[in-house]
C-alpha cells in the first residue's frame, strides 16, 4: 500500500483549544459535572478523555472519573481482520449504572467502533445516558450513529486515512490526512 501525507488539518494549538471547547460543551450539556463519567476508547480515546477530564477540572474545580474501554471482544470484524488485535483490560473506576457517560474516541468514521463500545458499556451496567465526543468526524457512517461533541468535521474520501497523533502515544500532537492507493478502513488503533 502506498501512502502519502496530503494535509495537516490540526496542529498542537488547535487540538488544545478544541479539547477545552469540548470540555466546556460537556459541562454545559450536563449542567455541571454531576454523575458524569468520561470513558475513552482504546487507544487514542484514552488520552483524549484524560485531557477533557483535566479541562473540566480546570473549569469546574472537580475531578470527573475517567474509564478505559477495550472494545476488542465486541468487534464485528474479528474473523475478517488480521493480525488479530490484542485484548486489553477495560478499567472503569465506578459503577456506570445511573451515570451520564461521555464516550471519547479520536476519529468517527463508519460508526462500528462506537456500536461495539455501546454494547460493551451495556454489559457493564445501565447508564442513564451515553453521549459521544470525537476529535474528528470524517463522515461515511455505516450505522445510525452521530457524535454529540465534535472537534472538527473533516470531509474525506474513502481512500484517505485520518491520523490523530497524540503526545502520550505518538510523541506529538497533530492530525494529518494521508492518501492511499486503495480503499481503506480507518486503521484500528
Amino acid at each position: 500500500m502506498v501512502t502519502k501525507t496530503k494535509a495537516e488539518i490540526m496542529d498542537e494549538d488547535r487540538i488544545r483549544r478544541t479539547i477545552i471547547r469540548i470540555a466546556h460543551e460537556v459541562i454545559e450539556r450536563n449542567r455541571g459535572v454531576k454523575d458524569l463519567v468520561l470513558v475513552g476508547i482504546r487507544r487514542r480515546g484514552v488520552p483524549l478523555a484524560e485531557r477533557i477530564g483535566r479541562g473540566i477540572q480546570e473549569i469546574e474545580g472537580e475531578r470527573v472519573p475517567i474509564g478505559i474501554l477495550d472494545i476488542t471482544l465486541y468487534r464485528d470484524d474479528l474473523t475478517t481482520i488480521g493480525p488479530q488485535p490484542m485484548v486489553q483490560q477495560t478499567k472503569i473506576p465506578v459503577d456506570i449504572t445511573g451515570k451520564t457517560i461521555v464516550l471519547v474516541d479520536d476519529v468517527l468514521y463508519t460508526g462500528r467502533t462506537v456500536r461495539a463500545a455501546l454494547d460493551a458499556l451495556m454489559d457493564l451496567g445501565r447508564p442513564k445516558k451515553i453521549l459521544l465526543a470525537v476529535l474528528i468526524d470524517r463522515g461515511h457512517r455505516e450505522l445510525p450513529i452521530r457524535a454529540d461533541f465534535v472537534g472538527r468535521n473533516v470531509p474525506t474520501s474513502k481512500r484517505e486515512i485520518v491520523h490523530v497523533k497524540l503526545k502520550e502515544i505518538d510523541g506529538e500532537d497533530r492530525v494529518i490526512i494521508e492518501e492511499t492507493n486503495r480503499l481503506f478502513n480507518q486503521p484500528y488503533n
Partner: protein
Amino acid sequence: MGLNRKDVLGLQELTAEEIQLILDTAVPMKDILSREIKKVPTLRGKVVATLFYEPSTRTRMSFELAAKYMGADTMSLAVATSSVQKGESFRDTAQTIESMGVDTVILRHSVSGSAQYLAKIVKASVINGGDGTREHPTQALLDMFTIREKRGSFAGMKVVILGDILHSRVARSNIWGLTKMGAEVRVVGPPTLMPPEIDKLGVKVYYQAEDALEGADVINVLRLQLERQQKGLFPTVREYHQLYGLTPARLKLARPDALVLHPGPMNRGVEIAPEVADSPQSTIVEQVANGVAIRMALLYLLMEGGSSSEGIS
C-alpha cells in the same frame, strides 16, 4: 497478534512469546468473570465440543464455561453413554463431530499423543485437555498465570514440582512452560515415580522433599494418581505421605511467602496436608477461576483471522 496456529497441543511446541501472549490475554478475560454479565459476544456462532475419554470435573466444566462466556455454543460428548460404547473408533467419532460443524474440539484421552492424532485428522482447532502422561497445557498455563499474577514474573523463581512426576502430564507441561519463561524448576518424588532422563528437560532432580523445598518460591503439589498405581511403585499411601506429603513442617522450609499450587482433585492427607491446602499460601481455589480465564484466552486466540490489515473506526 494472535496465535498463528490451528491447535494447542502442548507447551513443548509453544514459544515464550506465545506463552506470554496467552497469559497477557487472560488478564482482561479474568475481569469478565467478576462482572454481573459474564458474557461477551466474541465467539457468537462458533461451536466448541468437549470430547473426554477420561473423567474430569474442572477441566471440562472450565472449558464449557469459558466457551459460554465467550459467546460460543458448547456440546459435550459423554463417552460413557455414546456410540464409543458400541465400538465406534476414535477416528470415526472425531469425523462425526467435525461434520456437525464444530469449530474447536477439546480432547482428553488416556493415550499420549492422541491430541496430535486428532489435530491431524480434523480441520477444526484442537485444544489438548490432557493426553495420557504427555501434556496438559491449559493446566500448566493456569498455574503459570497464577504464579505471574502473584509474583509478577518467572525469572529466577524457584518452582518445585512435588510428587508423582512419572505419571504427570501436569508436571511435563509445567516443566516445558516454566523453563521457557526463565524459572528454575525442581522436580522431587520417589525414585520409582521419577521418569528416567527427566534432567534432560532442564530441571533439577531431587529425591528428598526437604532438599527440594529449601528456599522455594512456588510448590506445585501433584495429585498421587491412585488410578495409575497398580504396579507397586511405592509401599503405602501412608508412607508416601510421611516422605513426600506437603505438611506444615515441610512448607516452613520454603520461603515464608511461597505459593502452594495443586491442580486438583486433592487427596487430602496424602500428597498435601489439609492445613496446607487451606492455608493463606494456598492458591488452589483461585487456580480454578484462573483456569476459566486461560481457556477463554485460548479460545479467542485460536479464532481464525483473515489476511488484510484493515480495521474499523
